């Protein structure tokens, strides 16, 4: 095996030295490489065994936004001539994490955050895990805390579901 390899490399070097393009790759293989093009993995749940329940929001990929999906965060700073888009995005992230932790295990789906003028409206779908007075406590707490944090009125609008609404199983 080693002997044949030595022979083949000897042969290719001899061929190269002959300087004939037709003889360049006869009997040998080399690596062809190009620029990397990775598969898009953003906000996608890949098809699996078929036992994983997935909501409508999770099942549809981001390129379906404005086709079959809406937006989770609605504000005007992405329009022509408006600024503050980055600030709004950071605020949104903070709010999502805060609510995810405050209402731990109760959220059925992603939050929808709407800004109307000065008012920040957080629309949430929740599961009926806690008795209603506990929900009211947490809602009062979040509204007050976020109002003082962002210096604008914050309102929460909650809808309750019995269980997570499954769109399909992936």
């Amino acid at each position, binding site marked *: 095996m080693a002997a044949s390899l030595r022979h083949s490399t000897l042969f290719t070097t001899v061929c190269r030295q002959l300087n004939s393009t037709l003889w360049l790759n006869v009997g040998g293989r080399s690596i062809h490489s190009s620029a990397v093009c990775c598969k898009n993995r953003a906000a996608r749940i890949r098809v699996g065994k078929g036992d994983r329940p997935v909501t409508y929001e999770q099942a549809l990929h981001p390129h379906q936004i404005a086709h079959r999906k809406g937006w989770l965060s609605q504000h005007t700073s992405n329009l022509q001539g408006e600024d503050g888009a980055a600030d709004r995005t950071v605020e949104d992230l903070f709010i999502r994490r805060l609510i995810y932790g405050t209402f731990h295990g109760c959220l059925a789906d992603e939050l929808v955050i709407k800004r109307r003028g000065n008012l920040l409206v957080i629309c949430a779908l929740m599961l009926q895990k806690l008795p209603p*007075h506990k929900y009211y406590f947490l809602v009062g707490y979040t509204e007050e805390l976020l109002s003082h*944090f*962002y*210096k604008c009125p914050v309102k929460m609008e909650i809808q309750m579901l019995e269980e997570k609404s499954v769109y399909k199983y992936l």
Partner: protein
Amino acid sequence: AVISSILFSGSAEEIVIPRKKTWYGIAVLQALASTVNRDPTASHYVFQDDSYLTPRTSAEFKLYSLAQESGRTAAKYFINTYPKYFQKDFANPHIPCLMPETLELQVNEVSEAALIERIQLRKVKAAVDMYDQLLQAGTPVSLDLTNDLLDLISLYGDCDPARGDAPDKSLKPNRENNNAERIFNMMPERNRRSYGALIRGMVKHGAYSKAFNTYTDLLNNRLTGDVHIFNALISAAPEVREKYVEKWDLIVDLLKQMAEQKVKPTLLTFNAVLKALRRCGSLGRTQAFPVINEMKALGIAPSLATYDHVLGIFYKAATSAQGHTEILQDVLSEISGKSFTAQDPDDVEFFKDAMRICLATKDIEQAYRVHSLLGVGENWKLLGDSYYQSIYYGRFFNLLCMMEHIDVVLKWYKELIPSLYYPNSQGMRDLLQALDTDNRLDLIPQIWKDIKRMGHDNKTELVEEMLSLMARENQIPEVQQSFADCALDVKALYTQTDRRVPLSWSAGSLSSITSILLAAERTQQAWEMLKLFKLANRVPSESLMNQFLESVKASNNAQQAVELVQISASFCLSITPNLMERVQQEFDLTEEQRNTLSDLESSTAMSD
């Protein structure tokens, strides 16, 4: 409108869907108009608009609103304890109420600034301590600042205001205003404001005679009173005199002194006079109108508290309408269409007191006028907190059930309940009474659903009254079937053992359910009820036995007839021989059955 009329007509008409519908020309306008006023299907605005989170009883209403408030308080605690995270000011213009508050004392050295800070933060004990320290250190404290301190002590009665909740109402007679008096006596010079703080504090916390003594001191020091002092003294006058005449004389004397000292009376002065007149018996009736005329002559517009005091003077609790009904009408005529603002703490008493008078005099017209006044301008704000609201609407609904036709009652029922008012079990009994009066008992199953939703299904009197109303007469077949379903639902409540304490059977409830089931020809379930009688140790009535016999005869079941007689014998009912005779005569009995019956006859004859 079509659907609701079908629901309330009580008969199952066929719902015919027309092939083509023509709309009225103004249908769109009507639909838009229905959105303008209050939505009676929505819950209170503070709650989330979701059926799981909507309160169904008054207890839930209170629980959820208090839970939300306590969440806010918890957030405020965090905001005020860690203010450095909330300092960044995005808002332009600046919003002061969204910044963290400093509730802790910053200035700690003994100085006037520290005293000012403690007064602003309403820390009574700390302020008094700081003042004492200042005096000991020899620093003179300015008169204005000392007056501020006296105001603070007098307002809060010498103890720190409780956090959040209503302050502790118990007066401590031996401790009251000791600090205030001590500081007052130590003051090198006192002005009218100092005396004022002391007098008003004494009146607020019940030391009435001391207040008058302090006023005499004021006069002896050649100072004059101001309007606040006089208001306080007038409201304290009924407490320091016994007889009606003496009380009134004292008030007149105070008013004369007020005129001498050139102090202008205000609305609160006149309201205090009228409030004192409420406690002057018949003298109040003669003096009330002169007082009001005086008020109008001075150009002071009356507030709702004024009218409340007038009504209180003329409508005493003990006497019902004794020729004074014109007063309420006159008052309502005068204030109809006017919008009032809150000027006196007693303004909120007006609506519930007016409704109480309407209820006592059974005057539905005036009640409608009072209710329409509530819709004028800002008057809804003067209805008071949820407790006062529940009293007002409770009385209003009670009057409606008594006086109005059932259709009107049901219209108001849909309007008021449950968006404005959660009736208690007495209110539901009034509604059942109204249904009975107008012969609309077919609506009882729907009312039962509402009773269950409101959590009144554990009130035995209400349930038993409902059952007896259903069982009283026979109804047309569809209604009878709906009654039977309702009765079975109620029976389930009595027998369920999960979660909560079930209701306990009484002879009345058992008989009612059984006779409803019999009338609806659900004989199997009716027989099961008979067994329950034994289990619950109750005795069925004779009419029930007769009703059973009738139904057994209709089905011509001889075996059941014999069983019926056996059951009757086991309860030792006096009707047993009668039943036995009837069974022997009216049924074809087999030999065995005849033997059983004759055995029974002999055994009952022996036991007699």
